[in-house]
C-alpha cells in the first residue's frame, strides 16, 4: 500500500529528473510514449481525448488508479490501466507532468 504522501514524493522526484535534461522524450519511462497514440502531443489536434502534457501528476495517478479499480467511467482506459503497476503509473504521470508545449 502506497500512501498519498509517497505518491507525491515519487511523482515530484521523477518530475524533477524529467526536467533535468532538454530532450524530454529521452527520459520517457516504459509505456509513456505509447499513450500519445491517442493522447495528442500537439495542441492543434481536434479530439475528445484529453492531452496529458503538463497535466498534474497526482491527477493522472489518481485517474489511472480509479480507472484500474473500475471506479471511474471509461471506455478503454479501464482496460489499459489494468496492466500497469503503481510504480509504472507514477513514472508515466510524472513524466507527462514535466512535458511542456
Amino acid at each position, binding site marked *: 500500500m502506497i500512501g498519498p504522501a509517497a505518491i507525491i514524493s515519487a511523482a515530484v522526484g521523477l518530475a524533477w529528473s524529467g526536467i533535468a535534461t532538454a*530532450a524530454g*522524450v*529521452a527520459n*520517457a*519511462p*516504459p*509505456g509513456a*510514449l*505509447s*499513450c*500519445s*497514440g*491517442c*493522447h*495528442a*502531443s*500537439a495542441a*492543434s*489536434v*481536434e*479530439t*475528445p*481525448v484529453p492531452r496529458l502534457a503538463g497535466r498534474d501528476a497526482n491527477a493522472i495517478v489518481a485517474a489511472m488508479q480509479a480507472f484500474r479499480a473500475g471506479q471511474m467511467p471509461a*471506455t*478503454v482506459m479501464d*482496460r*489499459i490501466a*489494468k*496492466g*500497469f503497476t503503481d510504480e*509504472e503509473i507514477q513514472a508515466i504521470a510524472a513524466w507527462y507532468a514535466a512535458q511542456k508545449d
Partner: protein
Amino acid sequence: MAHASRRKFLTTAGVAGALLSLPALAQGSGGRVVVIGAGFAGATCARFIKRLNPNLNVTLVETSRTFTACPFSNEVVVGLRDIKAQQFGYDRFAAASGVVIAFATATAVDPQRRTVMLDNGSQLDYDRLIVAPGIDLRWDALPGYTEASVERMPHAWKAGPQTQLLRSQLEAMDDGGTVLISAPANPFRCPPGPYERASLIAYYLKTKKPKSKIIVLDAKDAFSKQGLFQNAWKELYPNLEWVGLSNGGKVNSVDAGEMTLVTDFERYKGHVVNVIPPQKAGRIAQLAGIANNTGWCPINPDTFESTLQPHIHVVGDATIAGAMPKSAFAANAQAKVCAAAVVKLLASEKPDEPRLINTCYSFVAPDYGISVANLYRPKDGMLVDAGGGVSPLNASAAFRAQEAAFANGWFKTITEEVFG
C-alpha cells in the same frame, strides 16, 4: 575596415566550420541510421530516433510520395469517407523531423557490409537499419488468385486504388446482388479489419441496396472482437452471413473469370468479390534475410532487433510480435520502443525493458465503435498480453457512439504525430 575584417573572419569561420563538419556528418559522427518504409512504423521510428539523438544521421527510404492509410479505409469502401482523408505527403514530416527522405525503392540489403542498395543506383551505409515494409500479398497461397485477378476481385488490403475499386464495384452493383468476402487464416494485417469491412458493407447494403446480402467466408473459427461483432450483426444486419472454418468457410481456390470462391462444399458466386489473401512481410524483409519460413520477421521484444540478422531492426506489420496484433497503433508503439533502443545501442547503453500499448477501434456502423485495448510486456523472448480486453458486450448506444468519436480522434492524433 573593422567591419569588413570581422565579416571576413565570420565567413572564414563559417566555411571552416562547414568544412570540418561535413566529413564528420558524412561519416555520421553520432551514427548512421537507415529506415526502410515510411508508414506508421517506419516514419514514427525515423522521427523518434532523430528526436532522441539529433546528432544521428537518419535516412528514410520510401517508394511513394503519398502515404495512403489503411485504418478508416473501410469507410472509404462504403462511401462514408473520401480517400483524400487517408492520404499524407511527407513535406511537413521532412521539415519538422530533420530526417532525410530518399524517395526510392530499396532493392537489396547486405547485412555483412551493412549497406542498403536503392533502385536509383545509390548505396546507403548504416550502423543500424530499421526495416518497416508492411505486408506483401502472397500470390502462391490461394490457387487462382493472382496479380491479374485483383482488378476483378479487389483485395483492398493495401489502401489506395484498390480501396477505390472496391468502392466503385459496390456502387455499381444492382440491388439484390451478393457481396462475398474471403478472410484469411492468422496472422494477417488488421485482425478485425475483415469484420469491420463486412459490417460497414452490410450497413451500406441495408441503407442503399436493401435486397442485397453479404457473405463472409472465413479460414478460421475465431476472430478479433468476435463476440462484439456477432452481437451487433444479430441486432443490425440480418443481411450478413458469416461462415467459419468448421462450417466449410475456408476458400480453397478462386475463379476470377466466374467471380466464384470455391470451398470444400460449395461454389459461391458473387457480384462483388473481395478476396483478402494470405500475407507475408514486405519484399525487402525477404531479401534482407530477416524473415523466417513463416514469411514474417522474428524479433527481440526489448529492441525489435531481428533475431536472424544483427544490427537490423524490424517494426510494424512485418514482425512476429507475439501477442501484439498487426495494427497501426501497435506499429507506432513498437517504432517508439525500437527508436529508444536503437539510440541506446548506438551509445553503447542498455535499452530499457519496454511496455507497449495497442488500442484498436473498429466501426460496426458509423456511430457504433468497438475496441480492443491491451498492454504488452516482454516475457521469455516474446511480447505477452499484460492486461486489457475488448469493449463490454452489453453497452448503451451512447457508449458505442463515444467509442466511435474516440476512434475518429485517434486517427487525427496518430496521423499528426507520424506525418505532421
